[in-house]
């Protein structure tokens, strides 16, 4: 294992972030451009729209070992594709409640809206989500092990 976090003894969560290309991914870029620092726990997957993110993908992330998932899209009304985030909002509202229902910790799976101009907010959200997940410890419930 050359995992740096492990060699130091401190567990660092890994969080998959599905970010829409137009707002949140740009917001994450802006966080970089503005040099807002946040924990190196987030692995960003660029998707065209939050409406592209199917619940399957979120479950797959947890199954593959993500300690947390963040899905972020444009603010309601700002969707580059008009309405993708509205559909996403319904899908995610149900999914989040449902995952919590079966015992997935509420802070494991997070959804948010971040616009292209919200670099600072992205850094804040990344930090916040990391902290929440860190408190929970490694995710095990839906983790595929062999």
């Amino acid at each position: 294992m050359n995992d740096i976090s492990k060699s130091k003894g401190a567990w660092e969560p890994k969080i998959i972030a599905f970010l829409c290309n137009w707002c949140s991914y740009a917001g994450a870029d802006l966080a970089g451009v503005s040099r807002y620092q946040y924990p190196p726990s987030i692995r960003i997957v660029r998707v065209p729209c939050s409406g592209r993110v199917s619940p399957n993908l979120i479950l797959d992330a947890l199954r593959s070992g993500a300690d947390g998932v963040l899905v972020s899209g444009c603010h309601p009304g700002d969707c580059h594709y008009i309405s993708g985030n509205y559909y996403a909002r319904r899908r995610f509202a149900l999914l989040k409640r449902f995952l919590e229902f079966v015992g997935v910790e509420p802070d494991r799976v997070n959804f948010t809206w971040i616009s292209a101009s919200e670099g600072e907010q992205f850094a804040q959200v990344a930090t916040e989500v990391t902290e929440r997940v860190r408190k929970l410890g490694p995710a095990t419930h839906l983790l595929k092990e062999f």
Partner: protein
Amino acid sequence: MSTPKGSVLVVGGGIAGVQAALDLADSGFYVHLVEKSAAIGGSMSQLDKTFPTNDCSACILSPKLVECGRHLNINLLTLSEVLSVDGEEGDFQVRVRQNPRYVDPEKCIACGSCAEKCPKKVPNEFDMGLGKRKAIYLRYPQAVPLKYAIDPDHCIYLKKPGRCGFCEKVCPADAINFKDQPKEHLLNVGSVILALGFKPFDPSGLDFTGYGNLKNVVTSMEFERLLSPSGPCQGHMERPSDHQEPKKIAWLQCVGSRDINRACHGYCSSVCCMYAIKQAVIAREHSSSGAVDATVFYMDMRTHGKGFEAYYDRAREEGIKFHRARVHTVSPAENDNLKVRYAGENGDIREDEFDLVVLSVGLATDPQVIKLANDLGIELDSDSFARTTCLRPVETSRNGVFVCGALAEPKDIPQSVMEASAAALEAERILYPSRWTETKEKHFPKERDVHAEPPRIGVFVCSCGINIAGVVDVQAVTDYAWKLPGVVFAQNNLFTCSQDTINQMAETIKRERLNRVVVASCTPRTHEPLFQETLREAGINKYLFEMANIRDQDSWVHQRQPEAATEKAKDLVRMAVAKVRGDDPLPYNTVPVIKSAMVIGSGVAGLTAALSLADQGFPVTLVERKDRLGGHAHKFFRTWQGQEMQPYLSELVSMVEASDLIDVHLGTTVQDVSGSVGQFTSILTDGTEVKHGVAIVAVGAESFKPREGRWNYLYGKNPNVHTLLELDQRFIKDDPGLKGLNQAVFIHCVGSRVPERPYCSRVCCTHAIDQALHLKEMNPDMDIFMLYRDIRTYGKREHLYQEARAKGIIFIRYDLENLPRVSEENGSMVVKVRDPIIDASVTLHPDLLILASAVRPRDDVGGLSKLFKCAMTGDGFLLEAHMKLRPVDFATDGVYLAGLCHYPKPVEETIAQAKAAASRAGLVLSRDAVPAESITAVVNLQKCTGCAVCARVCAYHAVNMDENSGKAQVDTGLCKGCGACVAGCRSDAITLKNLGNEQIMAAVEAAMEDF
């Protein structure tokens, strides 16, 4: 006039010249781009970051330069000077001298062996002389063209043949040619665009700054180089005297600007306030501790652009100090430190010590350019800028010759880019009959069919100077990439986007028979197209490509965790490799273009845009909400240069009304828009269905009317309280009632730069001062008081301010803590304000109170932005695609913006922007077809159940159910590739090409592999 030439000469290879060249070349004209130095890029290439987005200047510029350098219809002439321009509009004969490079650009591979061996060190002008280069050199690492050049003034061999010649000996490509001779080119062009830029003011003459005597006093341009990763200290901000990191830095504003005493530059350089704040912000980021003590000494803080005021606010919140003071003297202190003496606003003298002093030098015209202008017969103004007028903002005194960028007036990058497009438009307007007559067409090699090949992935890891390599161990990432499944090649590059690396990448793809490519560098949002084209040039489909964003989303956000950032970079590369492994070649879709435009709004912006397009033969539908054309301009008296608005407006309106190509819909708005670039269908409220290829949004803004609340100041309660436009209307009517007044008071920033509307309205300072001067013209005895916060008469408008002061108009500063108080006593107005200089309250008794109220976005802009799927800023203005380099484009293709709906701006900028929008729209309209989305949804018929969830959630009606099979089918022309259908489909039957579940999951799963 006989048929004009189909080509254009652009002089100056800075961002403005490059933009003009690209706009022209992309819309059917052949362009000769003449640049006097060895590489294009101009001043912008020397900058570290750009405000207000802090975008890395080189990063956003580089793709444009590379595009320019590679453009089939741009003839790049570097090391060249224009000798003469004869002839007239439509048919100019131009003589250009191209100085010898002494390096054959066809042969040079930019390996750098020559420079390594060259014994002659020369101060590097690109680094403002702070560093050294060799006599054979590259202007800068990402230079375009990426070819070495020999500096004949310093080359030992050229001075004494036979004495050196090392470069020739080591050059592996046999590219050195000491016998190279100057060449003279005779060009026949239809129009000329001058984009000669500026020269930073040389403060050597201003001895009080210590510049030239005190080592640690540097100019802002020098400081840019000190910050820049490609600069003399590789971005490890060092001060010149001892190469230590400065901990305390002062910026001195208005050095060589707003100075009629020593510098003889009365104008404001417009950009220095913002760049100083930017430098202060960036300096703090650059410092190892993150705690640079930064102080800016300024006269008026001029943050009048889009997003600027917020940037200023944030800088203050971050602890950057701002002192309203013109520094008296910089004197030496111990340790090569600098003592800065200045006076507080109340007159107390203060002294502070700094490690480094940065002089925010102004922008001036290069004496060589002045000479050239004289030679070409281009009139300059008293400040040596090209003379233009507000109503013809890019036209020079010579017909057919246009100007853009800082040559006409100091200005920032977006304004220069806008003008560049506007200048291109003016050229197109003359030359449109000859569109596509002199251009060549690009042919990519036939794409290799890689379907049956196992993945052969190449990974290119970018250092981005030190932007990435300063944090991430790029070598370790490269070594790691080699081991990933499918990877057969991995390489680290200093700047992957530089021309030589790009060329080398194409070669590598061919040599290694790569069929997938990953670039680990910056964000795909800016650089993906560049690399994708490289794939095409190398003969593989451009969709076999992925980027790993190891800069914006890694090295920049984990600056103090290099180990973790390196691990993350490996993860990101692994994810990209996993994803690209499953990528398929995709077809290049196109959409036929309906060659007509819709312009929404008929203010000056809308009218100008409509005419600009109609003049080129494109039909325009002009939609106006009100029942007459003209918009707010009807209420506008004159430009700051004194041109009266009403005659101009009437002329515009009658031209539009007379045009056969412009179909005017009054009292109408847009109800619904469908389709996309090339193929829009809009429904107007009058029931008309309009099919158009592009749209220009120019719906303007509104004047804030402070009818109540904190900014009321008796507005609407006392008949002698006006907004600026209301006073203009009295001017237009030549209201005699204005003549006998004794006292007028202007209150600035009414509703601007306040918590609920934090932006600066940009136009009001100049407008108010011009009105004050007009009142003085009407009645020289009138007492006029200006209650202001910062006077923002940027550029040449500063002369108005000087004139106002000279004419005895009194300026009293106020701030938000001490607002002026306006009351009515015995029927007359009383204004009380605290004068911070005399530290006493002043009571005024105006007959006329003018409120310079904010320009606010229209409420219905939101609806329009939704119709066209455009974004808005937090302030409610429309948001362009990129604040710096795409100032008139929306992120939605085929939709452009102009005028006040973008941001408050004076009429000259509105006209320029409208023309720029027309130029950008012309890029689409001049073609028969434009590229369409390739990443579209695709249906797996075996899995499809026909349940129609996909069709229900598709916002573009791109998915429908086939009547025969009952299964889903996708109209790829309409599909935008959002994937809402994919996430909705339970059967995994509809997927996005190259963004299918399989590929996304591959990336997700790769992210979680912990090795």
